[in-house]
């Protein structure tokens, strides 16, 4: 059998699985081809934390034997993937993207890694990330053990973080899918900047056992993929109850596109000002076009806005206190000073001083805000907003500086990332065009456990657009 051609690198999961079942390619060939590509191209984007090609090839031999015997496990059988380096893989270094943990090794697999192995997926590498998943905040893209994530569409731009390598790997055809994490924006941001589809699941739907903790009531794991369809397939494999995760919702997820509601029945809340007044000028044409495509699907677009709450201060306080508690031994040892980003070092230290009363105030406002946000859904099925208001910033640009222009009066849904994370809501990021040569994206967010509705809209959107199929220059 000849080595597979370059067409496999941007193929979807169903396509690769069909090739495996038709014996046009073997799992060993897929593991070897993707593994080598990740090893050769990944470092050029600072996307690779640890290659696991040989590990994947060994597992692929077993998968090929199973397929030969007719033991078919499902759509992920024989599909390579990469995992953010905050997920433990037994016996392999798990650095959390941070120098103080460069030699850390766990003797067990994260639940997500075990579940994917059970589905027959092949881990080809650990993917780079912002140190400590961003901790309480960082100023520069260089806040990583592996250096700044470079955007596959323009290496002078940032990939986004903290799941930098996960987004780069999928955008560049280094892996068919990848697993990342989000506490507040770490899946949606790199997905938007790199032009890939990604899903932040409902809090508690995917076990975090074996993942680095950052904020116990906010951390979530989710997939980066080529399409909404693939996100559904991966989520079905990784979701489920886990007694080892205290935040587990005790629920499974079944991807059921056949039961999708009619688009004309769906009411989609949006704020027009997000797409005009708030959006970066260069991104407005793409966002306007995305709105038109949404209208074309037949959904009912309804003007709305988030209830007025200080979402940023709430999420900032909760993450700061949780992170300072998680990493208290690091701070006490002095090794916190080995981190790359001065703002993160200071934020971790200062987090220890935040009074319990302030933390509890944030958590109490959170309950009120969540209740008010959920009331929006008495009249709506999903919320729609730009994933990020503009394209990726330049490498070296301070990330905590904001555009020097007056903020529009109506905040619309601009705080949806913070609000959605505080309320435990799922969100799907869909590439929707370009600002110059850089991708931009929209997000759909819904009530907890409404993933099938988000994916149904995402699938229809991607049936009418090809932004998710675009390839970065030189990588096709």
């Amino acid at each position, binding site marked *: 059998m000849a080595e597979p051609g370059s067409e496999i690198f941007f193929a979807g999961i169903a396509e690769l699985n069909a090739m495996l079942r038709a014996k046009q390619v073997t799992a060993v060939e897929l593991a070897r081809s993707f593994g080598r590509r990740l090893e050769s191209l990944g470092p050029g984007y600072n996307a690779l934390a640890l290659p696991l090609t040989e590990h994947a090839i060994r597992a692929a031999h077993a998968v090929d034997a199973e397929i030969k015997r007719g033991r078919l496990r499902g759509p992920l059988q024989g599909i390579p993937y990469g995992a953010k380096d905050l997920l433990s893989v037994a016996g392999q270094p798990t650095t959390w993207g941070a120098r103080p943990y460069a030699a850390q090794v766990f003797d067990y697999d994260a639940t997500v890694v075990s579940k994917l192995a059970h589905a027959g997926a092949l881990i080809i590498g650990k993917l780079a990330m912002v140190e400590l998943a961003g901790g309480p905040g960082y100023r520069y893209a260089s806040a990583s053990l592996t250096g700044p994530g470079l955007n596959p569409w323009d290496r002078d731009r940032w990939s986004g973080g903290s799941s930098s390598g996960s987004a780069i790997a999928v955008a560049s055809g280094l892996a068919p899918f990848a697993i990342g994490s989000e506490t507040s924006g770490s899946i949606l941001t790199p997905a938007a900047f790199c032009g890939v589809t990604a899903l932040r699941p409902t809090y508690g739907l995917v076990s975090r056992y074996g993942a680095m903790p950052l904020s116990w009531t906010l951390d979530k794991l989710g997939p980066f993929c080529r399409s909404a369809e693939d996100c559904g397939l991966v989520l079905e494999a990784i979701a489920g109850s886990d007694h080892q995760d205290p935040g587990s919702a005790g629920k499974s997820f079944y991807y059921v596109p056949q039961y999708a509601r009619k688009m004309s029945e769906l009411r989609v809340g949006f704020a027009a000002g997000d797409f005009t007044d708030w959006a970066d000028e260069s991104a407005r044409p793409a966002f306007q076009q995305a709105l038109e495509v949404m209208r074309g699907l037949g959904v009912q677009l309804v003007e709305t806005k988030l209830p007025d709450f200080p979402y940023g201060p709430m999420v900032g306080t909760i993450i700061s206190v949780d992170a300072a508690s998680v990493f208290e031994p690091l701070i006490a040892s002095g090794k916190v000073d080995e981190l790359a980003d001065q703002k993160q070092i*200071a934020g971790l230290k200062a987090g220890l001083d935040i009074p319990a009363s302030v933390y509890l*105030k944030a958590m*109490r406002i959170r309950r009120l805000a969540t209740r008010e946000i959920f009331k929006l859904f008495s009249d709506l099925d999903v919320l729609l907003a730009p994933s990020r208001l503009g394209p990726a910033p330049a490498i070296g640009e301070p990330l*905590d500086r904001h555009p020097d222009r007056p903020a529009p009066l109506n905040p619309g849904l601009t705080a949806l990332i913070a609000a959605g994370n505080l309320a*435990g809501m799922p969100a799907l990021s869909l590439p929707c065009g370009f600002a110059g040569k850089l991708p931009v994206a929209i997000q759909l967010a819904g009530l*907890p456990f409404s993933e099938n509705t988000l994916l149904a809209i995402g699938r229809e959107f991607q049936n009418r657009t090809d932004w998710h199929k675009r390839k970065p220059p030189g990588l096709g």
Partner: protein
Amino acid sequence: MKNKMTRRQLAGAILTATATMAAQTAPAIPANPAEELEAARGQNRRTSETLAKVPLPMDTEPAFHFAA
């Protein structure tokens, strides 16, 4: 005991808090670790002041779990 508050009162108070926050301009980038730590503490102070302005009914419990 319930500390009742109308939606209008709540929205008004929160709007004031968020507007104050938006009006604050970002300070200059700190030059050294000591300044950075002071900046982080200053940020935490401003954040807690913003949260303090949000009125809460007494019976509002912290959010620790989520349900469908």
